[in-house]
């Protein structure tokens, strides 16, 4: 009999999975504790950075990590132990890897999901005044966090579940 994730949708969409994944990745790789924030304090200006890792297989969608350019730089410094003066390729690489680990940690929390859902390599977008649109998602979990005052948000978007 084929595997179906349909029956597990409530487990998959459980918002606690996202919080636990963020805590795991940031604590392990950056030695810090993230705080869950109620809402964005200020818009990400002047420039924002978005990393996207796609899910494919029985679950399709994406994990999206977003922050200001300054926060991306700070997170890259925390993770690598290196210093960066600007948003360069290494910072973008680090930001994409954080998103990759978040996506992997998140899907690993649900039985059956990890083995039936693959990850894309990360894509990183930088710029001003852009939005990411998904047509009629099945569900979306979107939380705001901070690490030592640096704000960022993570979204899990499901646009198909079989």
């Amino acid at each position, binding site marked *: 009999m084929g595997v179906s994730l349909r029956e597990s949708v409530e487990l998959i969409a459980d918002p606690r999975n996202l919080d636990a994944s963020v805590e*795991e*990745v940031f604590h*392990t*790789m950056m030695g810090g504790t993230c705080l869950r924030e109620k809402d964005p304090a200020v818009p990400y200006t002047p420039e924002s950075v978005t990393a996207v890792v796609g899910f494919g297989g029985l679950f399709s969608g994406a994990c999206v990590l977003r922050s200001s350019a300054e926060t991306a730089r700070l997170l*890259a410094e925390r*993770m*690598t*132990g*290196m210093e960066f003066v600007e948003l360069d390729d*290494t910072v973008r*690489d*680090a930001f*994409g*890897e954080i998103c*990759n*680990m978040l*996506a*992997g*940690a998140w899907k*690993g929390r649900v039985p059956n999901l*990890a*083995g039936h859902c*693959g*990850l894309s*390599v990360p894509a990183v977008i930088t710029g001003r005044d852009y939005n990411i649109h998904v047509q009629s998602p099945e569900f979306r979990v979107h939380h705001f966090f901070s690490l030592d005052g640096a704000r960022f948000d993570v979204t899990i978007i499901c646009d198909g579940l079989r």
Partner: protein
Amino acid sequence: MSEIRTLIVDDSSVMRKIVERALRQAGLDTLVVHEAGSGAEGLEVLKDNAVDIILSDINMPVMDGIEFVRQLKAQNLAAGVPVIMITTESSEEHVKQAIQAGAAGYIRKPFTAEQVKERVLPLLKAA
């Protein structure tokens, strides 16, 4: 410990540096590191360089880590050298695939230096 020659394969240069740092934190001060951005590049590196251990990501463009391990065997490169997969893909299915392809161990991202030490040192001692 005498000089340890390592190949780190990951499409992310940041992750390659983080793995190298974890190895040094594990006590491998005399590390000689070769790097590759894909499985295909890793095979090229091994044609010209002998190594003692290989750490490879799975999810990479051009040639993924599983195919890289299969090709090592097919091309008779780095025979007897332990390969550890370091990856976000942590399902039993992925672990099984990696072991079947010839990997000696598995480290899930995110990882601590301690976890790297626990997996790498026994393999180096046994080699």
